[in-house]
C-alpha cells in the first residue's frame, strides 16, 4: 500500500524535497475525494488547505456580475490547487469545484503554517515552490486578459 509520505514524495510539487521536510509535511496531509460537481471550497470561506491533485479535474470559478459562474482555469493530476492558505487573511478568492470525480492529498494550512513558523527553512522551501506556481498563474492570467482570440484585434 502506498504511504502518504511516498505519495507526497512522488508528486511533482515536492520533487527533490528533503526527506526530513517530507516527514514534517506528512503529519498535515490526508487523502480526500470529491464527487463531480462537489465544491472543494467557496469564495469567502476560510482557506485552511491546499491540494495536490492525483486524479480528476477541478475548475476555478468566479462569479460574473449576475453571479453566473465562469470557469477561468482548470487543474488536474500533478497540479497544485490553492495558495490562499499561505497569504493572510487566509480566505478563498474563488470557488473550486470538481468537474469530475477527483482524488487529492489535502494539506492542512493551519498545521503547515505552524510548522513553517517553527522551521523557517521548511517555510522558505515551500514559499519558493509556491512562488513558482504563482508566477505561472500570473503569466497565464495576463495572457488571458489580452483576450488574444477576440475578433476586434
Amino acid at each position: 500500500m502506498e504511504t502518504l509520505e511516498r505519495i507526497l514524495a512522488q508528486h511533482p510539487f515536492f520533487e527533490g524535497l528533503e526527506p526530513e521536510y517530507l516527514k514534517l509535511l506528512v503529519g498535515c496531509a490526508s487523502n480526500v475525494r470529491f464527487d463531480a460537481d462537489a465544491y472543494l471550497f467557496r469564495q469567502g470561506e476560510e482557506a485552511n488547505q491546499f491540494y495536490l491533485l492525483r486524479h480528476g479535474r477541478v475548475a476555478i470559478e468566479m462569479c460574473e456580475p449576475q453571479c453566473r459562474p465562469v470557469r477561468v482555469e482548470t487543474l488536474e493530476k500533478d497540479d497544485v490547487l490553492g495558495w490562499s492558505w499561505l497569504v493572510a487573511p487566509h480566505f478563498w478568492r474563488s470557488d473550486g469545484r470538481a468537474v469530475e470525480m477527483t482524488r487529492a492529498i489535502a494539506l492542512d494550512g493551519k498545521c503547515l503554517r505552524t510548522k513553517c513558523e517553527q522551521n523557517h527553512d521548511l517555510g522558505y522551501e515551500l514559499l519558493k515552490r509556491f512562488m513558482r506556481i504563482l508566477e505561472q498563474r500570473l503569466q497565464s492570467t495576463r495572457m488571458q486578459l489580452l483576450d488574444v482570440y477576440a475578433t476586434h484585434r
Partner: protein
Amino acid sequence: MPLIAEEIEGKAGVSDPMLPQACRVAEIVKETQDTFTLTLEPREGESLARFAPGQFSMLYVFGVGELPISISGDPERSGRLVYTVRSVGQATHALVSRGPGEWVGVRGPFGTAWPLDEARGKDVLIVAGGIGLAPLRPVIYHILRHRDDFVRLLVLYGARAPHDLLFRKELTSWSRTPDTQVLTTVDYGGVAWHGRVGVVTTLFRHLRLHPDQTVAMICGPEIMMRFVISELREIRGIDAGRIYLSMERNMKCGVGLCGHCQYGPYFICRDGPVFPYARLQHLLERHEL
C-alpha cells in the same frame, strides 16, 4: 458578377499568378458561429494546382474583394481546395455567404510551406490558437497519412471559448491514433464545459517533450505565438532553429510585388507565411512592426 466569372473561366490553368481561376463552391460547412469551411472545385475538365501544407490562396469574391486564405484541406486529395474562413469583415462575410454552385476566383497557391522534410523522424509539436488550427490541419493530414515517417504527433490547441473550437470531431479522432496526443483548452468556459480551461501555454505541463527531437509549428494570433515561443525556448529548452511559425499581414498581390505585406526585409506572401523563428526573432521583438 457571373459575367466576370465567365470571362475568366476559359483562361484557367494558365500560369499567370495574377489571373484567378474560377472555381465553384461545392460545399460550405459551418464550423462555429462565425467560421465556415468552403470546398471549391474547378470547372469540369480543369485541374487545380497542387499545394503544400502551409500555403495560401488569394480568393476573389467577384465585385467585393480578394482575400488571402490559408488552405486547410488534405494536400493529397486533389481536385478540390478547402479553406476555413472566419467572417470578420465585408469580404470574408461575402465569401462565407457564397452558396453551393456559386463562383469564387482562386489565385495561387502561394507562399512557403511547413518544414515536413525537416520534421521527418522527429516528434512534431503543433501549437494552434483560434483559427490558427486551419493552416496546420494539412500538416496533421500529411503526418497521419505518412505515420511511419514521424515519431510522435503532439497537438496543442487553444480557443477563446468552447463554442469557438474548430474541427472538434477531427480533434477527437486524431487523439485516438497511435503516438498522438491532442490537448485542447479554452480561455474561458461556462459550467457546462467539462474540458480544460486556461491559456494554450498551460497545456505544456501535460507534455513530456524531447527538445532535441522536436520540431514545433505554431500558428495563431501573434501575441499568442510570442507566449508560446517564450515557453518553448525558456522553459522547454527547444532551440530557436526548431521552431516555425506562420505569419499574417495584409496581403494583396500574393507574389511579393505590391509591398502591402512587408515585414522588415520580408514580404510575408513571398518569403512566408511560414518562417523559421530564427529568421524573425529580431523582428518579433520590435513592437513597432
